[in-house]
């Protein structure tokens, strides 16, 4: 290998072989150990899951256009919201950013050739597929109507309308998906710890890696508890061990402790990678060093660790004791601080910046708007007395959609547009991408803002029928859902279109300084033709716009 060259533009004359053209055929993808191909497969798979979950959502909202029967029956409605929740949570949001974007970007941003365990990585993708198949079979078999939380005793007794097979298939699906998630997390932790090239210190890592690292920590520490919990549900259902069944002295509230010990940290699995993406989007498009790098990095880890101590705030009205509720409420407030720190730091990054308004940045702005609302409404739910009123109402629905959709989904789209030139080697068209960002923003607010009002007025969630006084809100919400759906379709259409008609992407179209903008677009099999220079990944002053390639180049 030649000595390290400081200029990183690769000669355009020799047509370099990249990871997409490296080999051909179905098997070359299905059996690939390349993290980029696995990332792309994850991207396709999770996007399909998103469209599936989105379809359920559209059907749900359509049913709620009017009280009483609109298009589906009680039972179908219950199955729809169960699968909407389960598919979106387990198949889309949890793997969406870390497993798809993270898999693709993490080794490149780190300057490594691959993740530490490529075979485990591929296995984790197939675990995802198997889990998805279990979910689909639950849908096709007999329907699953327990809600994505599988609360006992509803899920463990014959009281519900879904059959054994549906619940066992779905919980098996969660179990398998859990392992997919654990293996991805484990892989990332090991990669970040042991595969950093010389010069890449902890505080030289882009913030996306800090976020992914924190996420991976949660995946490894929390997911096993979910695994044992759903395993106990399966055993309960099959054999009747009575652990969560009051008839045999079991305890349904204990189930909720088990479930939320995983599922609250899981909320941070969903949002932390989004924080990482936004940190990248904002600093790159502001062409300015991120403000307060260490505070953002530490706040990710702080959120990951504090996230383990607050699960009881899902249970203030569940029959949990007063003392536990009070303790959990107090700890919950502490998690507001690292989240707020991030928002303030991003804002400060925009100060004296030089902002390019491309589609990823619009998504980042809409993230800041929506996540701020999502975060602030969390305060109402961590406060004990207001939560007693708001718990299990549409207020909660609106709050977590502001965080998960307004947060994670916009970050997912933003990150996808941002890194799309790197992933596909093609530039997307800016105008429809901006339209999609706009539609998602408007549609989202229209869908979920009325739900805050509904919830405060006392409209409980998971209701098939509702009182006539809520109809107006529901109709606004339904219209919003259509707009949101349209926005998502425009976004995907823009990306697909670019694959065929897009201009060839330069190495560094946005002027990013982290390592992924030093390797060609799309990257070759081992990511870098020559060892990359590790420098300050937020120092944009070294970059200069090059008219010829329509991209940025390092000046020094």
């Amino acid at each position, binding site marked *: 290998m030649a000595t390290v060259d400081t200029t990183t533009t690769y000669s355009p004359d020799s047509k370099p072989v990249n990871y997409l053209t490296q080999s051909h055929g179905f098997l070359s993808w299905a059996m690939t150990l390349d993290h980029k191909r696995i990332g792309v497969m994850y991207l396709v798979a999770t996007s399909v899951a998103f469209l599936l979950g989105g379809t359920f959502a559209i059907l749900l909202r359509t049913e709620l256009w009017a009280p009483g029967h609109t298009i589906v029956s009680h039972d179908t409605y219950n199955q729809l919201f169960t699968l909407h929740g389960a598919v979106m949570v387990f198949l889309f949001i949890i793997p969406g950013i870390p497993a798809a974007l993270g898999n693709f970007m993490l080794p490149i941003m780190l300057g490594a050739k691959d993740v530490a365990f*490529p075979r485990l990585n591929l296995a984790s993708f197939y675990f995802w597929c198997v889990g998805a198949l279990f979910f689909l079979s639950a849908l096709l078999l007999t329907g699953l109507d327990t809600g994505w939380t599988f609360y006992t005793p509803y899920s463990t007794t014959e009281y519900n309308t879904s059959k054994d097979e549906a619940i066992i298939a779905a919980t098996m699906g969660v179990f398998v998906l859990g392992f997919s998630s654990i293996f991805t997390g484990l892989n990332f932790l090991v990669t970040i710890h*042991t595969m950093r090239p*010389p010069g890449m210190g902890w505080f030289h890592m882009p913030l996306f890696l800090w976020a992914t690292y924190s996420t991976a920590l949660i995946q490894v520490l929390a997911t096993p508890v979910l695994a044992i919990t759903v395993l106990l549900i399966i055993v309960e259902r099959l054999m*009747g061990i009575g652990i969560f069944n009051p008839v045999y002295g079991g305890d349904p509230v204990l189930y909720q402790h088990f479930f939320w010990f995983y599922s609250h940290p899981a909320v941070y699995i969903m949002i932390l990678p989004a924080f990482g993406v936004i940190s990248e989007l904002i600093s790159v498009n502001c062409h300015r060093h991120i403000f307060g790098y260490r505070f953002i990095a530490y706040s990710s880890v702080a959120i990951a660790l504090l996230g383990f101590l607050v699960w009881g705030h899902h249970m203030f009205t569940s029959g949990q004791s007063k003392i536990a509720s009070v303790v959990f409420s107090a700890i919950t407030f502490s998690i507001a601080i690292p989240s707020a720190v991030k928002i303030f730091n991003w804002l400060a990054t925009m100060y004296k910046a030089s902002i390019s308004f491309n589609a990823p940045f619009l998504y980042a702005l809409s993230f800041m708007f929506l996540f701020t609302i999502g975060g602030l409404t969390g305060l109402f739910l961590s406060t004990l007395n207001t939560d007693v009123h708001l718990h299990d109402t549409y207020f909660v629905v609106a709050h977590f959609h502001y965080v998960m959709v307004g947060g994670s989904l916009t970050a997912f789209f933003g990150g996808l547009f941002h890194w799309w030139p790197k992933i596909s080697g093609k530039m997307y068209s800016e105008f429809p991408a901006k339209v999609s960002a706009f539609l998602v923003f408007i549609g989202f607010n229209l869908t979920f803002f009325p739900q805050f009002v509904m919830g405060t007025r006392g409209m409980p969630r998971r209701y098939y029928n509702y009182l006539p006084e809520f109809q107006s809100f529901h109709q606004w919400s339904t219209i919003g859902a259509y707009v949101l759906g349209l926005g998502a379709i425009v976004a995907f259409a823009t990306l697909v279109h670019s694959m065929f008609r897009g201009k060839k992407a330069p190495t560094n179209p946005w002027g990013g300084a982290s390592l992924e903008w030093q390797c060609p677009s799309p990257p070759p099999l081992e990511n870098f033709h020559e060892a990359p220079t590790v420098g300050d990944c937020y120092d944009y002053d070294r970059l200069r716009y090059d008219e010829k390639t329509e991209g940025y180049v390092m000046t020094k």
Partner: protein
Amino acid sequence: MSDHAVAETTDAHASHGHGHHEHGPFQAHHFETPKQQFDAGKFGMWLFLVQEVLFFSGLFVFYAIYRINHPEIFEWGHQALDTTYGAINTIVLLFSSLTMAWAVRCAQLGKKNGLVFFLVVTLACAGIFLGVKYVEYSAKFEHGYLWARYFNPTSDNPHVAEPPSISKEVDKVVEKVESDLGDHSAAAHDAHSAEGHHHGPVGPPPPNAGVFFSIYFTMTGLHAIHVIAGIVAITWILVRSVKGHFGPMYFGPVDYVGLYWHLVDLVWIYLFPMLYLIE
């Protein structure tokens, strides 16, 4: 390979950036050195063990909560378990842990025969463990000491229930060991013989007694599944070591499987007193 040569190779690889790799047959392309590969694998394995600990923690938390809230269920239920079997299995697993650790040592030193031998012994121990578990499980099934829904002790007078015959033989051995230990265990010995050899619970079951057996079966069952997974993993290692894959510069898989096997042992070290001993 002599120690000297090993040291030299390590040094050569320790200084990165030379660019010329002497990739061993089992070194993955994306690792710079065998050391990096080994460390990555080892850290990955430890993370996997962490994951296992949290996986089991669900059951331990469950045990703790029921144990504290309903001690009577445990006091009654644990009498249905045969301490002797539990003790034998503990010793068997500890011994297999020893042989596993020894196997890892052999792999590290490049002693192929020793490696194969100790892996076979470990497998044999795992087999014995499962055999004893099978006997125990059958006894429970026979007497209806099952989990909550099927809990239905058949014998009205458990004192009459005959313990399976191996138990008696082994009891004698254990008693002998105990009496060899000296004075204070004499009391225990007396207590043991005074109570006779019944292994059935005394008195009628308290309400929800089946929960004890739910806990017993889920905990030991999950552990047994891990033992079976361990057997599969050790067999894989055994095949590879017969083929001569392992040596001082590449023994990661043996080490990782070893770690897993010790964790299985570790879980049992807690299960044994929690289920069989604590009254």
